């Protein structure tokens, strides 16, 4: 059985239990964040929650680690550009 999440509006299917990072990599997506200073592309690096390179926005909450957060059916996942504040007024 597969479920799916929305990644910047695109449907990404995954196997229950997979992390968002695993689901995105399986769909052929290698990067989902740009850095704050130089706008460099980043994806998954350490893979175990240590490096914070794989940050993205999940259901409106920025700075979530794609390598740790389990994918859920219907999740709204967005790439994270720059400072990572999403819609938060900070």
């Amino acid at each position, binding site marked *: 059985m597969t479920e799916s999440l929305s990644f910047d509006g695109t449907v990404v299917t995954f196997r*229950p239990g997979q992390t968002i990072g*695993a689901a995105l990599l399986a769909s052929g997506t*290698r990067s989902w964040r740009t850095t704050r200073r130089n706008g460099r592309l980043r*994806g998954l690096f*350490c893979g175990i929650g*240590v*490096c914070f*390179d794989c940050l993205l926005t999940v259901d409106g909450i920025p700075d979530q680690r794609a390598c740790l957060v389990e994918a859920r059916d219907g999740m709204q996942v967005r790439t994270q550009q720059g400072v990572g504040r999403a819609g938060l007024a900070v």
Partner: protein
Amino acid sequence: MPGSPSDPYDVAVVGAGPAGLAAATTAADHGCATVLLDGAGGPGGQYWRSAPGTAGPGTDPTTDRAGPGRVLAGLLADLDRVDVRTRHEVWSIQAEPAGFVVRAQVDVAEIASRARTLVLAPGAHDRQLPFPGWDLPGVVAAGGLQALAKEHGVLPGRRVVVAGTGPFLLPVAGAVIARGGTVVAVAEAGDGTGWLRDPAVLMGTPGRVRDAVAYAAVLARHGVPFLRRTGVVEAVGDDCGVTAAVLARLDGAGRPDGGSRHTVDCDVVATGWGFTPRLDLPLGLGCATRADLDGSLVVAVTARQETSVPGCFAAGEATGVGGAELAVVEGRLAGLAAAIRLGNAPSDPPPARLLRRRRSLRRFAALMHAAHPVPPGWPAWLDERTTMCRCEEVSVADVDEAVTDLGVTDPRTVKLLTRCGMGWCQGRICGEPLARLVAARTSTPYDPMSMATRPVAVPLTLGALATGPS
């Protein structure tokens, strides 16, 4: 309620990998009220990973050898007497007169648990050494690649170069093959001869040797080149990520021979230079430390695995990187020592069988560290544009400016001037390489303590802090 000030646990174990599982089950076997906390969604740690929903690793899929999965199955079967708290990311531990307060973040809430004694089993993560292009998408930590392959059945690409040093590179390459990927090459910086310095040690740990032989056989069967004295000195890529790796022969100190540079096509480069123990929590608690043979900062422990903080024990990679089997032995000793301290077990000497096993596995670890050192010449493959700090985007040139133009001679001041190590990861990735680089540039001794202290072990929201623990 267990864990409250009026009803503290007997033992809190932080980390549910091999060491923590062994400690928690041993303490519970002695009648201790035990809680086991881990940030992940299930027990097993980084070592025992399994596909979600399966019963756990029985046989290693790469080598078909009945692996340590049986040990895990035994520990998991014993867990029913332990209060297991997964998805609990412990961010702070404080000592108080009656024991310890363990504060964990659960989603965005904060939960405090109290316990009379503590066993720290925080594990380790891959040690990284920066190289040109290591911040391109497609360059991943060797352990991260293994986690993806084993737990999620996913490869981040099809053509993989595995590089760095140490025996762990072999199972990582094996996991790629098992998932149908192509391992273009395994580049090992060492020459392997270090293992032959003490054959008696290898004879005392035949399981380790059989594992290595089995993995080597798998690589040979799939025609994977195993290149000794070779390193990835650059990852090359485009807007989408890595497209190639530049390999070079390394001399005895790890300096690349420029004439030997050659490029191989790949879309994944997985690197690991041994492991860095995760010492945020022990350091925050004030546990005394020492430098281990591989240059890692580790917790100093007694023969009973007790730290310098009374009632606080440590086990596994945090006391010296040595692998899962050693972690289980240390965890059992730590759990037993906690039970003895609580009066739940007689104060006899620890079982001789465990002490013997710990001794031979530590000797194996010492041989491994001697055979696979962090090569001192690694800064030779950096160029001035190489990223040092991935979070704050600090380059080697920025670090050199602080050292050369501003005359800084210690990594902490470099950090304050450049922000190297001040980003999201708090220097967990670049802190040790920065300390090593500054030491190399200034001809001063490398101090593993210089970039290790992090009072808050996990990022947490101001809201959780303001609300306080429940």
